[in-house]
């Protein structure tokens, strides 16, 4: 249940690399053999089922891919998609309760008392402290009353005691994913659990869970130097699009999200046409498709919600963020680039590979090996998302005694080389070979495959694109790389962020907490 946008930066880099890896292609015979293993079906409610037979061991993995994430959070409610994801672990009208009829009434009262409390709390003038205290008491009391009907964590407990492995979910800016693996003889139980939480979620223990999410924010963002830096970096890079907004949510917003808002989000975005469910493992499509159909038909139909229409305007001035604190120096910069549907998508992947992949990469060899100014240096893209125009970013971790300014200068030198001189034949060939091999390596893992198939089915409307992108990889030329570098890596399109180390205050106390 992590907010993907807020994992540590190198995790982001890794994820981006994995996405790029998945975005490439494999050999023709693999596509052919997968054609035989994969069955898809679109249900009348619009939900797409995908089953991939891989009968190695008696287990299966699944991925439920919702084409909505924190980019879809309404104004004033950043963090809502992630908050809903947490709610999806709290059970349904059938599981997680000892008396749903009474619980429903109690939950309605929780909402009413919260509304009353919030209204008083947010009064710009004339807030009555005594009244506020009473309203808070009523709100806390209503929650305690509702809790009487809760069987806490029953949904996850049933999954875990039936062998669920790697049970988790993640909310990114673009999408929300739910996933785990299980023994194959629990497939029907899983279909009951999963379809239940997609169609019949109950806003149970919402306000306690909101506190939990606030702790998640403190852990990933507020109390983590790179988390703090990345949040400011993105907020600065974007002026209009929601990619610039905190994904886990700004504290004042995520701290006031209501259960009613979460349920509205569910109603709008958790419709069949916005969901792909992929199952990979020891299953036979002919046997399991009817079971899946029976359960997943419960998910409400409805038209696919409109994509966000805000387009980030062209950046015309360089922007920068400097954080001065008692943390070691760090440098990151990013340039706006188009989304994954752009004709040059594979060119960006090629640039990332040549600049960043391994000890042969240009940035390693230049900043780490030869100049010996950085411990680590890479470029990664797209970040923070891929569905909408995103960023191509570079970062470097200075060695002791070296500064962010030196990182910046060295990165720019490498970028200039891309713009003025062709990459070598060997570099281009290496990118193509590694793209194919990396994709192949990824095919041996049920969960990884389920994730990739669900993602490709959603993003391209056809899982085959996972393999077919080989064509685009193969077509990348040296000229493409030069052209794209000259188009994107320009000063006015750049946002940078750095940490400058500040000396500790002379009288700083250690061992306080008195």
């Amino acid at each position, binding site marked *: 249940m992590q907010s993907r946008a807020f994992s540590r930066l190198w995790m982001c880099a890794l994820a981006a690399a994995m996405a790029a890896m998945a975005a490439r292609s494999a050999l023709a015979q693999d596509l052919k053999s997968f054609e035989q293993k994969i069955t898809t079906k679109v249900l009348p409610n619009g939900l797409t089922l995908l089953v991939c037979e891989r009968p190695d061991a008696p287990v299966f993995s699944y991925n439920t891919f919702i084409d909505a994430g924190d980019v879809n959070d309404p104004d004033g409610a950043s963090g809502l998609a992630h908050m809903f994801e947490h709610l999806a672990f709290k059970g349904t009208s059938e599981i997680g309760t000892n008396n749903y009829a009474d619980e429903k009434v109690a939950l309605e009262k929780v909402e009413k008392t919260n509304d009353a409390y919030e209204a008083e709390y947010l009064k710009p003038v004339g807030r009555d402290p005594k009244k506020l205290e009473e309203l808070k008491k009523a709100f806390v009391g209503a929650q305690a009353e509702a809790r009487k009907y809760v069987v*806490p964590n029953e949904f996850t407990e049933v999954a875990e*005691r039936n062998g669920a492995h790697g049970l988790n979910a993640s909310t990114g800016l673009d999408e929300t994913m739910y996933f785990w693996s299980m023994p194959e003889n629990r497939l029907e139980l899983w279909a009951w659990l999963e379809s239940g939480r997609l169609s019949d979620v109950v806003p149970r223990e919402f306000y*306690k869970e909101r506190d*939990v999410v606030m702790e*998640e924010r403190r852990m990933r963002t507020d109390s983590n130097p790179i988390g703090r830096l990345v949040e400011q970096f993105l907020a600065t890079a974007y002026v209009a699009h929601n990619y610039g907004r905190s994904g886990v949510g700004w504290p004042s917003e995520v701290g006031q999200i209501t259960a009613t808002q979460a349920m509205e989000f569910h109603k709008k975005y958790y419709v069949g046409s916005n969901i792909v469910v992929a199952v990979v493992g020891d299953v036979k499509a002919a046997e399991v498709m009817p079971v899946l159909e029976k359960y997943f038909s419960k998910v409400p139909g409805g038209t696919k919600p409109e994509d966000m229409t805000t387009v980030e305007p062209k950046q015309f001035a360089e922007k920068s963020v400097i954080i001065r604190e008692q943390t070691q120096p760090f440098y990151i910069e990013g340039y706006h680039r188009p989304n994954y549907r752009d004709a040059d998508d594979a060119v960006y992947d090629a640039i990332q590979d040549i600049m960043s992949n*391994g000890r042969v990469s240009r940035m390693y060899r230049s900043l780490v090996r030869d100049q010996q100014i950085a411990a680590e240096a890479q470029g990664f893209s797209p970040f923070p998302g891929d569905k909408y125009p995103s960023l191509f970013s570079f970062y470097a971790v200075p060695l002791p005694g070296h500064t962010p300014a030196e990182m910046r200068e060295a990165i720019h030198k490498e970028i200039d080389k891309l713009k003025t001189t062709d990459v070598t034949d060997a570099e281009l060939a290496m990118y193509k070979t590694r793209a194919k091999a990396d994709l192949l*390596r990824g095919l041996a893992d049920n969960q990884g495959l389920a994730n990739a198939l669900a993602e490709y089915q959603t993003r391209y409307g056809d899982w085959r694109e996972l393999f077919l992108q080989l064509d685009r990889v193969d077509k990348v030329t040296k000229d493409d790389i030069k052209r794209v570098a000259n188009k994107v890596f320009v000063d006015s399109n750049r946002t940078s962020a750095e940490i400058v180390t500040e000396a500790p205050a002379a009288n700083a106390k250690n061992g306080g*907490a008195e």
Partner: protein
Amino acid sequence: MKSRLLKEVSRAALAAAVMGAVLIPVCAGAQEAKPWEKIPTPPLHAFKPQQPKRIELKNGIVLFLQEDHELPFVNGSVLIPGGSRDEQTAKASLINIYGQTWRTSGTEKLSGDAMDDLLEAKAAHIETGGDVDSTALSWDSLKGDADQVYTLAMDLLFHPRFDAQKLELAKQQEATGIVRRNDDSGEIAGREAAKLVYGVNSPYTRQPELATVGAIALADLGAWHDRSLKGKLIVSVSGDFDPAAMEAKLRATFEPLPPVKPLPAHHEVFHDPTAGVYFINKEDVNQSNVEIMGLGTDRRNPDVPALAVMNNILGGGFGSRLFQKVRTELGLAYAVGGGYGYSYDHPGTFRVMVMTKSASTVDATAAALKELSSLTEQPFTDAELKRAKEDILNSFLFQYDTRAKVLAESERLEFYGYPADYLETYRAGIEKVTLADVTAAAKKYIHPDKLAVLVVGNGAEIKPGLEELKLGAVHPVDITIPQPAAPGEKK
């Protein structure tokens, strides 16, 4: 950079062994069946995990071959006994630096940089690395390149170069880690908590410093290499190969080596930590990392199955006492969990952690401590026992659901000298655990008065203060990074 150290080998995760995978059905109690209890659980498809072929050479070296023709790759590794716990304190981080420099330097004939170019053009890898009790060389490539990559890997194993420039590069990387080690509160907490248990000078926790890194010379790397290569190597190959040809090839390489020499055994004495509250101030955070620490045990302890069940009840997953109380009911943490640890050949740590906003540090710590005490004070119920056993047993399949996991488990058991059927025995042990066993284990191993509590957080925001835990004086821990003495200066 791919650093595919054989970390997995020594990680606590279990894997593989042949066993009839009979999963326990989760059945309803006496009352009316719940909707999910009416869903049938058919018998599991028959499954016999494929064991690797084990060959013990006359010199004591062990080979494992695990065929897997699903994808056109061949992967291999050589696991070598001896790791950071065997290095000198004055040269702490030798193994890290050795693990990097070994590969980046390359072989006598081929520099590391040239090796990078050659391998990456084939999407192949050869990597080296070090861990607490071992070092390793590993390789992987497409099937068509497997012979060439194997030859190169063996050249690196037997004829490494150890280059001064690459040593310098590795030292710089290590120094960067040292000067940055106090930036992230989670990193501080994990490191300092382990020191509270094992002690600052223990082979398991001693800390690299700029001075110890500076003391490492090129000759140290070569000496370590020559010494460790005399140990009992475990060679594993998996993937798409012809088994007879592969066996012949491995024999040709490893049979001529002299008989293996075992490393001297470790004889550390382990103690409980000094109970009390320890504090590290970090002004730039709004959340405290709380670590409650004690000494754990090792896997040879016959109580391990009972402890595994106890751990599941305490901190394993959504249904555990810690999760239910501290996260779900109180909303005090996103991250909370822990358990009584067991390593393969030395005592692990007993660790419970919780991360909570500064102001609720005392509340969350007290709540976690209460759940710990509850293990001896609040009787375990049949429902808890049943849930915990089902959790462990029904997901047990995932210890050996891929050939790679089965192989990794075989290597692990071989390395630590455990019987090949260990996992089977362990599983059977879990099945037999009774309420009385868990109760007895809790009584024997859980002693809240012997635990150390470490808090890394923002002192100015921690209100009420840590003295409110009523666990005595709060001991500040100094984590200042020592600067090496300038030349000629005496320290």
